[in-house]
């Protein structure tokens, strides 16, 4: 198992390298610069000398290949560079955003799983029923709403009209604050999970071994518990993993809307002021999260499914 994890970790390196390269190239041709963003408000004209000094300080006067080399060399030493904007190490900028982001991703996924999986399960137990049809129409609808629109509606309804929940913000120890953004972010994975679960349960329910289990005289609860659940889990694990893995990147819009101090909003802010080292850093974090989650999913597969060998 450890060897598997080690190997998978090594396999991440080329992917990460490619990501770094792509982002580096894209943002080396992007119009606008951090220096120009200093003046974006149109209020404080910045001294030309200051700008030149800044350029030199960030090494922006060096040719592109040199900058790339410097960056990669730094990465090799786990150094993400210095943020243009805050002039502190990129990691110091990213680190405080990490936990809120993970929390939001997990909360959204928790919501998606707790609602989506049972919905899909129940729908599949009576395929074609009213419940099934309405659940599935609801699921497809959930996949069809623009996220920020949904977030805004939730905000107006639950925070303002009903006054049940705070509308924005982050509180380290507050569950209330995470509810609305988690729901807004979780609706689409919830819908996906409901559909995948339903399809998975139908698949398993129609499997021969379930007929065998019935022929053995199992009660329905025992049948579901000891034969269906695990097999369905195997089928939805991929969806589950892919969703958790990509949630950190998908959260951009919701994080911005709800003033959530996560990686996504940091990314958007950094793009808009052209704080390229932070952009690089956040993308690396987002991609790493995806890769690590996927590795964990594979490990989980190996743990659940004896047919899969990790080595």
């Amino acid at each position: 198992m450890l060897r598997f994890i080690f190997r998978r970790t090594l396999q991440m390196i080329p992917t990460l390298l490619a990501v770094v390269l792509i982002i580096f190239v894209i943002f080396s041709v992007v119009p606008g610069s951090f220096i120009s963003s200093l003046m974006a408000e149109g209020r404080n004209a910045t001294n030309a000398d200051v700008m030149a000094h800044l350029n030199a300080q960030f090494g922006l006067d060096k040719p592109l290949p040199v900058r790339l080399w410097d960056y990669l060399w730094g990465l090799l030493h786990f150094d993400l560079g210095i943020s243009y904007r805050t002039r502190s190490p990129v990691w110091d900028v990213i680190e405080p955003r990490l936990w809120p982001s993970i929390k939001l991703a997990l909360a959204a996924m928790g919501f998606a799983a707790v609602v989506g999986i049972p919905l899909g399960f129940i729908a599949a137990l009576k395929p074609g029923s009213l419940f099934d049809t309405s659940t599935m129409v609801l699921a497809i609808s959930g996949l069809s709403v623009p996220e920020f629109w949904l977030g805004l509606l939730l905000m107006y309804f639950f925070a303002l009209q009903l006054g049940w929940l705070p509308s924005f913000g982050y509180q380290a120890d507050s569950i209330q604050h995470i509810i609305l953004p988690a729901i807004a972010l979780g609706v689409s994975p919830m819908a996906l999970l409901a559909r995948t679960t339903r399809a998975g349960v139908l698949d398993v329910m129609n499997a021969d071994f379930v007929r065998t289990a019935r022929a053995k005289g199992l009660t329905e609860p025992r049948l579901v518990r000891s034969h269906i659940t695990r097999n369905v889990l195997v089928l939805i694990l991929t969806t589950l993993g892919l969703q958790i893995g990509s949630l950190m990147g998908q959260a951009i819009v919701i994080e911005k809307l709800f003033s959530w101090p996560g990686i996504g909003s940091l990314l958007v802010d950094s793009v808009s002021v052209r704080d390229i080292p932070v952009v690089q850093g956040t993308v690396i974090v987002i991609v790493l999260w995806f890769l690590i989650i996927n590795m964990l999913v594979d490990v989980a597969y190996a743990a659940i499914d004896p047919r899969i060998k990790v080595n």
Partner: protein
Amino acid sequence: MSDILPDPVLSVRDLRIGLGKQNEILHDVSFDILPGETYGLVGESGSGKSITGLSVMGLLKRPLEVTGGSVFFRGQDVLKLGSRARRRLRGDRMAMVFQEPMTALNPLATIGRQIAEMFVIHRGMGWSDARRKAVEALESVRVPSPEERVRSYPHQLSGGMRQRVMVAIALACRPDLLIADEPTTALDVTVQAGVLELIAELCTAEGTAVLLVSHDLGVIANMCRRVGVMDRGRLVEEQDTRALFENPLHPYTRGLLAARPRLGSRTLARRGRLTELDQVVTAEERGRDAPTLTTPRGFGLEASA
């Protein structure tokens, strides 16, 4: 006649199965199986023999449903039982072995657990006791080194081994009736005989009646004492095995026998299903609403040997 015969274990009376209420696909099927008897149901694929077996077990899946008739098991009409009582019978008093050993076992559970489950459900044993019984059950179906095998997963076993495991599960609680639905069809020829012998031997030893569903006349001839021939949802003929082979009464049966491959091309017979009977028997001959042609049970058990 029934007064000189023992009470049947299973008595199917005018069983009708439909796709919903309208489309009847099984028409008034009736037959009896005596204790310890091996009864064969033969016919083309789609003739309704498998769903007959499933309906006895109560495993018909929507939209299939029983629309009429009765199924007496040990004198009791199981169709009138509640689902709870019916479930209690399943696995305990009547058991089933399916065609596809590759998929009939839960891929994520050890076979030991899957066998042990029978003792837990029906005998109320703890898991550790049940597991010990599972080793015995595996041993009885002649799976080598059963202590190790109980820890194996289905994918680690060959098809023949898996079917032996299925037999072990089915016979774990010593049922009164075993329904074997094409138990060897998916197996290699070389292991077919072994599995069939195993079923015959264990059932004879315990006095278990067997309903053997097969399209393979060879298997039927070797295993069964009495045979029912099904065609398009009807039981067209029922005779003792020897009588059937010697003197088929129904044109369809004659066609079936005629379509049987000649000696020496047995491998082909296994592959090619009996699907082109229309060329041998005309639709007219096969008839529509005729009653089952039947001869009374003969005595003596030589046919089952």
